[in-house]
């Protein structure tokens, strides 16, 4: 593989890992728990900004990195403290929003409230230039562990490794939740909040938990991305970006980790890369717009023809192989005191 190809492949792998992590986080909320978090991208941005201001150093004239940009705080914490801090900020930010949106509102209104929160966040960051350098965004964000690799290509592969470590940790977390009795309770809430509450599930607290953990994962994905690309501005986290991730989940298969992984590679990575190879046509920005059109069409097509996605949610059985059931012969139920299950079906 030539150096250029290696560089391209490693970049794709890193983007892929970031988008898989983000989609798994969103899937914990949407696929498992049924929360429509239209502010998801804001939590990714919160993680990215946190990691940025914690590594850029103090915002002073003497700091060559921050000479032309203004931001709050500013520190040079070692890696991976910046990522942990990002996750923490993602969690802290979830509480005030979750308490308002998840407590009192019906799910469709929750979605609208989240969308509004996302818009407000973008507006605030753009308007208050002293906060996170407004519209221009932050740049020259230092790459972590840059000295550990001699060449740029070597560093690319190192960052692929770092991304894979985070990917593995996030997979472990969400798989553990999903396989635990907790995962079952979350899916029960997704199916019917009232029935779950009637069985003693504290719906608000469980939904809040999924919201917080999902947003922490979003923040981690943001930190991972920003420390690789080195810059971050409001244009990168406008609200439609949430729909790209949501689309990836719908196309891949909500509540299925493998499906979501495939969706995350197809949509946020695959389409944006695929569009890159299109010949330039139409006015400026038209090819970029094609990306969103494609995503929209794909989401509608999947909702219509394959609503469970490419790899549908797995049916959870309990070591109860189907072949071990004795086949019922017609009339077998008559011999027992009770009609067979199929006869009971007549009643329905």
């Amino acid at each position, binding site marked *: 593989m030539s150096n250029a190809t290696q560089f391209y492949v490693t970049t794709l792998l890193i983007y892929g890992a970031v988008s898989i992590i983000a989609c798994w986080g969103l899937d914990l909320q949407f696929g498992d728990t049924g929360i429509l978090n239209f502010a998801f991208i804001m939590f990714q941005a919160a993680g990215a900004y946190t990691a940025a201001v914690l590594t850029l150093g103090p915002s002073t004239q003497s700091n060559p990195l921050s000479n032309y940009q203004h931001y709050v705080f500013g520190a040079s914490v070692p890696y991976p403290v910046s990522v942990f801090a990002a996750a923490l900020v993602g969690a802290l930010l979830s509480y005030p929003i979750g308490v308002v949106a998840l407590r009192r509102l019906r799910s469709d209104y929750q979605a609208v409230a989240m969308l509004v929160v996302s818009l407000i966040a973008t507006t605030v960051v753009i308007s208050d230039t002293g906060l996170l350098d407004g519209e221009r965004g932050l740049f020259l964000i230092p790459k972590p562990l840059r000295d550990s690799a001699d060449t740029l290509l070597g560093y690319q592969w190192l960052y692929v490794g770092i991304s894979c470590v985070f990917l593995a940790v996030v997979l472990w977390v969400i798989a*553990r*939740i999903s*396989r*635990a*009795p*907790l995962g*079952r*309770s979350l*899916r*029960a809430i*997704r*199916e*019917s909040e*009232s*029935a*779950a*509450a*009637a*069985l*003693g*599930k*504290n*719906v608000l607290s*469980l939904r809040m*938990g999924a919201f917080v*953990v999902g947003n922490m994962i979003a923040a981690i994905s943001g930190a991972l991305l920003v420390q690789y690309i080195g810059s971050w501005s409001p244009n990168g986290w406008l609200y439609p970006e949430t729909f790209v991730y949501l689309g990836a989940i719908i196309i891949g298969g909500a509540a299925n980790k493998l499906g979501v992984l495939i969706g995350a590679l197809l949509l946020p990575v695959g389409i944006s890369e695929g569009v890159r190879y299109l010949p330039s046509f139409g006015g400026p920005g038209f090819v970029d717009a094609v990306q969103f059109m494609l995503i929209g069409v794909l989401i509608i097509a999947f909702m219509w023809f394959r609503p469970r996605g490419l790899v549908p*949610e797995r*049916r*959870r*059985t*309990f070591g*109860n192989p*189907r072949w071990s*059931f004795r086949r*019922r012969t017609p009339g077998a*139920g008559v011999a*027992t*005191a*009770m*009609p*067979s*299950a199929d*006869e*009971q*079906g*007549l*009643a*329905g």
Partner: protein
Amino acid sequence: MSALPAEAVGRPILSARSLSHSFQAVRVVDGVSIDIDEGRLYGLIGPNGAGKSTVMNILAGAQKPIGGTTHYGGVDITRWPAYRRARHGVIRTFQLSNEFARLTVLENLLVAVPNQPGDTFREVFTTPRRRWNRRQGESLDRARALLARFNMEAKADDYAGDLSGGQKRILEILRAVMAQPRLLLLDEPLAGIHPRIIESVCDYLRELRREGVTILMIEHELEVVETLCDAVVVMASGIVIFRGSMTEARQRREVIDAYVAG
């Protein structure tokens, strides 16, 4: 569940006083008081629109009354949310089937198990999987035995949403039983169940009562209520018009009038 000691039977377990509720300007429940004694099986009957389901929703904590109080085991639970009541043994079923459609039948039953290790975000990361699985194994045995009793073991791994209407009703009762109720509130549990199964469901409810579960059920089939229930509460137009035995209720003028008028 173990049978109640003889002296416990008949002790008041739930006492609701002057419950009221209205939808916009319509008073659907108007000063309803109900006393329920431990270990008995009660029928809550009345014509359509009498406010029975609303009373049940209030007792289960799913709706907040605009007036009145509810005491359970001597504790004022008026302001308790549904999940807290459920954790203390007040378990209800719904008038319309409310199964977890995209969970299997077995999963529906397992969700109900109280105090299952690994069921909170903290426990997922602090308790070993062995502990969840051990407890889950015990619950699975119980769940399979319950399904077998109603000839539904072949449906164990089917999605609950794919069951027939009657099977969904049975699943809902079994799910409530898995939650280890002390007071079971059943909203029309027999509606839509095949007539041949009704008797076995009734037998099962009697058995639960013997084991010490107190039951309050809304039911339209008065013959069933007569053979099954120790006592009935009759409601009409948002008020309680009679408390006592079904035989007695049949002779009361106001009860007959309510049914004729309703």
